[in-house]
């Protein structure tokens, strides 16, 4: 396991924020996962040693929390919200569209490792469902034909260009 200097510095900066070292576990796991895509057994051992814990203390977190991974997602990870308010707006159909367009079942990674799809629980933007996240960006009302177009733009890597879709984050007003 090899972490960048930046990641190592960040980890050293995170630990003293907490009165007890163990509290830093989840935030360090995030740093490792952001960099390596997942948290391997080796990574668990490394983090545990860093915090003076046993590897199981880290591994039990990785296996509990839905967003922590033992194997990486694809380069572009697509999350579709499954929970009731989004489902009422057609998120099951949206997820099927993505499955068809990306050629993968939800919960899986494409063979070339480029895309992965997850039909996950509430993304807390229920008023504008179906909500879709690509990486860290949130897209609202991805429904019906829009979902088809969205998937095509995603595949041609044009999602954020002029003809594409504007994310919730991009829509925030600047100063």
């Amino acid at each position, binding site marked *: 396991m090899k972490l960048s200097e930046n990641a190592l510095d960040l980890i050293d900066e995170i630990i003293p924020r907490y009165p007890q070292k163990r509290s830093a576990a989840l935030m360090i796991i995030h740093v490792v996962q952001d960099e390596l895509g997942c948290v391997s057994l080796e990574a668990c051992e490394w983090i545990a040693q860093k915090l003076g814990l046993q590897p199981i203390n880290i591994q039990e977190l990785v296996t*509990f929390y*839905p967003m922590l991974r033992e194997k990486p997602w694809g380069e572009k990870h697509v999350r579709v919200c499954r929970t009731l308010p989004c489902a009422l707006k057609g998120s099951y159909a949206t997820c099927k569209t993505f499955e068809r367009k990306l050629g993968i079942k939800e919960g899986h990674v494409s063979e070339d490792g480029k895309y992965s799809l997850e039909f996950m*629980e*509430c993304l807390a933007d*229920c008023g504008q469902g179906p909500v879709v996240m690509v990486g860290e960006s949130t897209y609202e009302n991805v429904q019906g034909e829009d979902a088809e177009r969205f998937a095509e733009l995603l595949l041609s890597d044009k999602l954020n260009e002029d003809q594409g*879709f504007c994310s*919730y984050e991009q829509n925030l007003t600047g100063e």
Partner: protein
Amino acid sequence: MRTKDFAATNKISLANEYHRYNLKSVIFMISKKIAKEKRIILKHADDPNYSNKIGCYLRKGGYKMLEKSLKLKPEEIGEEVLKSGVRGRGGAGFPAGMKWKFLDRKSGKPIYLICNADESEPGTFKDRQIIYKDPHQLIEGMMITAYAIQAKLAFIYIRAEFFEGAKILERAISEAKEKGFCGENILDSDYSCDLVIHRGAGAYICGEETGLIESLEGKRPNPRIKPPYFPAVLGLYQCPTIVNNVETLCNVRHIMKMGGDAYAKLGKPNNTGTRIWCVSGQVVKPGYYEFECGALTLGEMIYDICGGLHPGRSLQAVIPGGSSAKVLRADERFTGKMKDGTEFDWGIEDIPLDFDGPMAAGSMSGSGGIIVMDDTVDMVQAMANINAFYAHESCGQCTPCREGVLWMRKITKRICSGHAREEDADLLLSVANQIEGRTICAFGEAAAWPTQSFVSKFRDDFIAKAKHPSDEKSQLQLI
């Protein structure tokens, strides 16, 4: 769907809409006496000229209340909050001032403040608006609260799906630190308190305050049993801890601005202040709307504020307070007596939107997430969808919950896949009844209430599935 082309003109159209909407609601008010939105927390959230940077916040009088509060004694702030009657906005509706009173100040242990920004109740998206659009309001509310309870350190526990939200907060905290609103010797006073962002990792149970504390300690978020583990006494690291919701903490700032007594005049007695209602599901204009508590009814919210249902549809059911709240059937009558003795006889549309109204109707206002379902929805599928959520999110600590939610998912899914049996309705009820009241935390109730209410209120739909397994009630797939 907003395209980027649209987004370029978005700010202008947003501004126009802003004014037009205000005008429209005034006309509404005169003609139909519908209450107008009263935005206190979300005052600037959708103002196209407002950003989440500190400059903007300061220009609107930001951090003035922190300055004022630091000149008061900590217990004076507690008194104002108690007088305001503000109830927790996270779901349980417990008076915040009372919660602070329970704090064990004599133990000599450090005191901690935690902001619950896990916002995980399906149907709720209010805290997102505050975090992304007005983060300094939250920080100011937190620092006032931290001073009032004399916290040594404060945390914001934010759900991991808010990637950008966590970055916005990180930036806002460093801006606040630079200006001396947070950290060492706040505004040159003797009081110091640091603020730390802690990201969750997608677990609903972390919204439960003791589960959140376990998570913050670096453990699996298995909730703790109360008593003895009331956070105000034995919280983070077994020290006295206050856990408050994002909206509640923002309210603290406004309580200090108005004074507790003036704040208590907003809304209704025992239901003070404003609330942000999040409306989702099948209405024309879903969204977040801030109103004084009790200023309007559920019917006015759906038909006047949210533009009603889609053409040709009729109302079938509403979940009034996030997916854990008991469902209300459109043709139900709700009768009984309020605590003050007044009798009520309501249809679904007459239920007042405050804390006590939905409670009197046998449900709850919870986190303010109103989920509207019209007649195209297959209620058994909706039930199955909710059950799948709880089955995914149970932490697995208590047997009745861990096993019960899985069986509820399996049974409802089987019903929806054409293998329903007539006894299923009773079987589901029996499972739900054996979860409720038999678990360490309130997740058990949160998982049981939907099943109990769906099955008893829509029993015919469950029976019909057994009699005519191949009939499709709806094109809309929910499971």
